[in-house]
């Protein structure tokens, strides 16, 4: 069954990939455009003897994730932008207690209730922690249904490995569209290694009590814990930065885009190349850790950049941080649920190159 290719919505593929990754606990609350994911889990978790709960709110759902994660279980929640805002309290606690968990954001347009159409306006929230305190979560940005499945599946392993929550940042377009997807091999949750720090099974393990907590009222101790966590983040940055490059080597201008806007940018690149215009594409797959070093190296080689986003310009700040004034960085974006077209991006490229 591991090799079957199915036609699935992004939302469903994320659900199936989570189940195959050994997710035994899913907690959700309805919100468009990720409803198919919650429904998929409702239909498929219970028959497998796993836990599905439609929580009373996103706040409760993330705190259920916290409880499940504290026992060492692979746990997940999903939502869309307004619901992800409600989850920030719990995400901060997960990070403070060093608990692994997977959070999926099938993002929509904001601020406020905003709209239900796709957006990349949650980049700041996703890549800067999002809640209170000093912390980061790993952020993975899929561009397709296939990659949504692959990255969700991998998110559980990464989260367990690093004891950092992983945010899968998709958008309404990826969640809603259907594509062929080859699903990863199912993992038997019982085969996963036990987590020595988790609560429960004290008798079997014959150990001293475990306390899962983010609290520490001694400033010297809490500072030391935060410093240790940030040292750990440096390891993650070294090991995990991931990106895709398309025809960057000879490019006169490199489009920088993730997720849906990277797909649009790829179309613009192909159209430009057909016209003899040398456009490249740099697509960050990990938004945290962001591939600063690679972009910096490209800037040093004299590349110029155009960040393309479905926002008023958020990731572009990381491109500027990466290039650090060594290369021109421009921005093109649509927002409010609008998706830029290939023609628009191409026109912007031509405008910039003609300047």
């Amino acid at each position, binding site marked *: 069954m591991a090799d079957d290719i199915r036609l699935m919505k992004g939302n469903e593929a994320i659900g199936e990939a989570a189940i195959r990754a050994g997710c035994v606990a899913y907690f959700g609350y309805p919100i468009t455009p990720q409803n198919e994911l919650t429904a998929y889990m409702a239909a498929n978790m219970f028959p497998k003897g796993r836990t599905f709960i439609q929580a009373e709110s996103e706040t*409760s759902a993330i*705190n259920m994730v*916290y409880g499940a994660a504290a*026992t060492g279980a692979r746990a997940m929640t999903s939502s869309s932008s307004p619901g992800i805002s409600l989850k920030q*309290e719990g995400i901060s606690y997960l990070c403070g207690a060093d608990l692994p968990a997977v959070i999926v954001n099938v993002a929509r347009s904001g601020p406020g209730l905003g709209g239900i159409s796709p957006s990349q306006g949650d980049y700041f929230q996703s890549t800067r922690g999002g809640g209170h305190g000093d912390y980061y979560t790993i952020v993975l940005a899929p561009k397709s249904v296939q990659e949504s499945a692959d990255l969700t599946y991998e998110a559980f392993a990464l989260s367990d490995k690093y004891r950092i929550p992983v945010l899968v940042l998709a958008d309404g377009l990826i969640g809603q569209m259907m594509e062929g997807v080859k699903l990863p091999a199912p993992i038997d949750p019982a085969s996963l290694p036990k987590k020595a720090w988790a609560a429960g099974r*004290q008798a079997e393990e014959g150990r001293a009590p475990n306390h899962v907590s983010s609290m520490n009222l001694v400033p010297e101790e809490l500072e030391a814990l935060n410093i240790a966590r940030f040292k750990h983040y440096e390891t993650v940055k070294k090991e995990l930065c991931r990106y895709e490059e398309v025809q960057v080597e000879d490019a006169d201008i490199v489009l920088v885009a993730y997720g849906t806007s990277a797909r649009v940018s790829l179309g613009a690149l192909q159209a430009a190349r057909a016209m003899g215009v040398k456009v490249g594409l740099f697509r960050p797959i990990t938004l945290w850790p962001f591939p600063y070093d690679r972009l910096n190296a490209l800037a040093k080689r004299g590349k110029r950049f155009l960040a393309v986003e479905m926002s008023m310009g958020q990731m572009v700040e990381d491109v500027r941080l990466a290039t650090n004034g060594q290369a021109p960085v421009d921005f093109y974006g649509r927002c409010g649920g609008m998706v830029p077209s290939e023609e628009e991006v191409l026109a912007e490229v031509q405008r910039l190159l003609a300047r």
Partner: protein
Amino acid sequence: MELAFGHPKSLKPIQTKYCPGCGHGVIHRIIAEVIDEMGLQTKSIITNPVGCSIWADLYFDFDSVQPAHGRTPAASTAIKRMLPDHLVICYQGDLAAIGTAEIIHAANRGEKFTTIFVNNAIYGMTGGQMAPTTLVGQYATTAPNGRDPVEAGMGYPIKVCELLATLGGTKYLARGAVNNPANIKKTKKYIRTALEAQMRGEGFTLVEVLAQCPTNWKMSPADAVGWLEQNMIPFYPLGEIKNTLQPAQTDAAAGER
């Protein structure tokens, strides 16, 4: 010689940070005694709340999980579902305001952990602000002229057991107090009934415990036990507010009704 009475194994033999006369310590002790009696020390997990009893994980000698303010019922829901053969105790002071949604829906889903709701009619940890269970007229730093339900927008004190009793998932809701030995004994029985029902998987169980907070009531410990008797018990009646446990199983508590 047989040891007839001693310190419960499930509670570490150390001095607590709680104020003199505080109810939390007594409640910890009777919970620990019941866990010892049930032989469940290494199969227990407590979710210690945000509040003075956040320190509970220093004192109970078994696993613990510390969730956000008011969210312990949500976290306990998942813990119990992941570990259904464990004894999960959701220890709370913060369930009738910030945790209202979480407790109502955990109760309504019939989640099979046990909540110990410590009602001391005040926010202890933050220094004596009004709690949802503060009595009408009672002083709090945020009710400087006494709790005034309507004009000052403070609302009425909430009777948690009675509120939850209408929900289908609730099987056992009892209210005890720790202001004198007789009440402590009864409260321990309620806790035992609830924890046994949990291990039989019967449904949602909660024991509300009226407790002293002499520090924020601004009284001596001796005055606090009297104040609880004269002011809290008349408004928050003691006893089993709801008991729909399987009939054969309720004999232990029957004498106390």
